[in-house]
């Protein structure tokens, strides 16, 4: 499943077992075949092309936003998609979409990378900032609420920023660079926190429930493990930014991420096995699922009266930053919460809005 770059000196003399013309530069860990760079590109790009074709992800003429964070995955995504668009003539109107959380020392640097990518790939770039959308930057939020729970804000705002951006720019689909590790991590996290509704849908390649609104977010999960993306970026000498978010050490996801890394070291296949498990879970049909509605305040999808972003924003603006975090009574959606304390376990009020997809 993954390729690991080997020292070219050691493999000198070995020829690529696919084309048998160029010198091999890589060893596939799965089959131990040695292949050259060019064939690796072909195999990789062909796989993505097949995923696009077989899942019918796009239609000609669609306006597609590529989520670009400046990181490795999204850089590869932007490069591959623009390459394939030209090669196979998808006739897609591609552009880059970046969210500026307003984190000094992290996002400003990575946005520079995205701006360079804009020129390198000739794709127009749109930047949406938390400041414009919500009136707050992450730096200001962290200053107010501290380093605890700040990822809740960023996750909720980030997810909605993509929705809002997609609506604003009238795009048909939004493509994100989520890889297999992210999906596996999401499967695990949903088990750990009992989010059965998300567990049932987090492995699908398209999250269809957003079609009802202005755009569709495609989890562009092409079942690539990190290494392969890294190899591709490395050989193509793609220009990407690789620093963890400066607030990230406090993220709850960290636990699961660490676990996934350990697992991958022990058994690389485990990542794909987790996704397979996630796909094979059969969830009881009599389960109560959260009903999808719209937020009374901003009109975006929400399973509650107000969407989570509005609740969090209200908290920030009123100087009550813990509003909407955890299980508090005095929130806007309090009606539901009080029902819960009386009635026991109702899945609807499990604070779904706190989570990314």
């Amino acid at each position: 499943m993954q390729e690991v770059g080997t020292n070219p000196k050691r493999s000198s003399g070995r020829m690529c077992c696919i084309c048998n013309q160029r010198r091999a530069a890589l060893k596939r860990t799965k089959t131990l075949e040695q292949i050259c760079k060019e064939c690796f590109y072909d195999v990789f790009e062909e796989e993505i092309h097949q995923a696009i074709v077989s899942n019918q992800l796009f239609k000609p003429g669609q306006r597609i936003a590529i989520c670009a964070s400046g990181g490795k995955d999204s850089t590869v995504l932007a490069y591959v998609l623009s390459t394939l668009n030209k090669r196979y003539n998808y006739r897609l109107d591609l552009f880059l979409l970046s969210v500026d959380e307003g984190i000094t020392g992290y996002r400003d640097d990575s946005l520079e990378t995205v701006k360079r990518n804009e020129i390198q790939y000739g794709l127009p770039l749109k930047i949406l900032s938390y400041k414009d959308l919500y009136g707050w930057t992450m730096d200001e939020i962290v200053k107010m609420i501290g380093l605890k729970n700040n990822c809740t804000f960023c996750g909720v705002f980030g997810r909605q920023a993509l929705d809002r951006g997609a609506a604003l720019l009238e795009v048909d689909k939004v493509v994100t660079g989520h890889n297999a590790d992210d999906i596996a991590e999401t499967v695990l996290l949903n088990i750990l926190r009992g989010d059965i509704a998300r567990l049932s849908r987090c492995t699908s390649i398209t999250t269809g429930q957003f079609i009802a609104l202005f755009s569709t977010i495609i989890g562009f999960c092409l079942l690539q493990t990190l290494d392969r993306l890294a190899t591709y970026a490395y050989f193509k000498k793609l220009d990407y930014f690789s620093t963890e978010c400066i607030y990230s050490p406090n993220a709850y996801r960290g636990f699961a991420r660490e676990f996934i890394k350990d697992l991958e070291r022990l058994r690389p296949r485990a990542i794909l096995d987790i996704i397979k498990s996630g796909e094979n879970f059969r969830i009881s049909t009599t389960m109560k699922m959260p009903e999808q509605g719209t937020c009374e305040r901003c009109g975006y999808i929400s399973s509650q009266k107000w969407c989570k972003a509005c609740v969090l924003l209200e908290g920030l603006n009123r100087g009550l930053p813990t509003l909407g975090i955890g299980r508090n009574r005095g929130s806007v959606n309090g009606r539901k919460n009080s029902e819960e304390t009386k009635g026991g376990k109702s899945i609807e009020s499990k604070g779904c809005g706190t989570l990314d997809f």
Partner: protein
Amino acid sequence: MACNGSGCQSNCYKDEEEAESGAYCAPSTELTKGGTTATDLLANKLCAKCKVKEAISGYGGIDDGRFCADCFRSNLFGKFRFAVSSTAMISPTDKVLVAFSGGPSSRVALQFVHEMQQRSQKNFDASRDRSLPVFGVGVVFIDESAVTPIPSPEMEKTVEDITLIVSSLAPPAKELHVVPLETIYSSDSGDGKDRLAKLVHSVNDPTGREDMVLYLRMLALQKVASEYGYSRLVLGSCISRIACHVISATVKGQGYSLPADIQYVDARWEIPVVLPLRDCLAQEINLLCRLDGLKTLELSEGPRAGINGLVSCFVALLQEENPSRECTIVRTAGKLIPFQFNRIPEISDDNVPLATRRRQKRYNLKSNESVSSELFCSLCNSPLDKSENVDLNNLDSFSAVCCSSCWFQILPKDPSSMERFYSDLPQSIVARGKQDRNGNLNILREQIKDCLLSDTEDET
């Protein structure tokens, strides 16, 4: 903060209580593990149930610090009794075999089954017509010294201790079966121990080897239960154990078969397996052992390797961070649809009192909320998804009807070692596989008959 555990109502006046009873000192310092701090102990307060005695705390888990020792004990037994009565796990006519490893969970399982038996004995003695018999209880210990590096003096000592534990339980007397793992090979061949060791050591993946031993242990338990006429097999799996299984099964790609393993009842085996401690936390079980001075034994097996060890570390870490995490994991997995065999088979016997049958019917799993599965992995006996790579043309070979997880972590890759592996398998696995396959073959033939060119089968 309100808790999100089940039965949350009584938790809500926790804050007031804390204010009232600040100055109580813990009487149970020796009960706490090394990891807990002194502040945990100082926060002691009155029992939330009886409001008379001081609550005990410091053992972890959701109910930590809520109950006094007596209420804690009855609460824990209540969970056990609920599991038993709500699923009609044990009927008066049953003969129950408790799988006893010497560890805390199975010790508590044995203790609770014993207490329950004593109660029904009391009822039996008191009743005039003696219509309800008392269910029988036996205990089995599987000696795995053939595959684990346990020095034989230690094993002898363990067996001695176990005999003492079982014999010291009040009457009715319980039969103890101490059985080596190699019992799964028919006794007349005599080379069972060697074949077992060869079989287990031919599995290269450390996780696979552990799981293989687990499957073989189940075979041995089933064999004992069936030989001595038991009708239920009780395992002491607690929440913490099941939570680990949920995660590790997910990691091994067993998402389809996972719900089969975590229900109260698992009747895919000849003798139905029941998990009455499914709602009890490991911390609670450990506390009960300490409170009641229940003797437990820990064999020096060393740390678990591979995926299973990694997962249990991960879950332990999460549990430390949030004491209801294990419950949440099990509850999430509990929402997956179970299989048809996750229920006690209906009794059609007229000798069984009507009340028992009626109760069983009422509480048993509703069949419309379950999945039927025709195919089982020949090795681990987990139900197979239709999408699983089952080679329809090759159903007569053993490895064709194995789950992908067994394929990856247990079965040898090259044909010659596969042959050796197959020849070292105990007869019961081979026979079960054959029997299943014959049954399946007919079903599958029915499905694919239009595509078949010949009508004859060259099988057996």
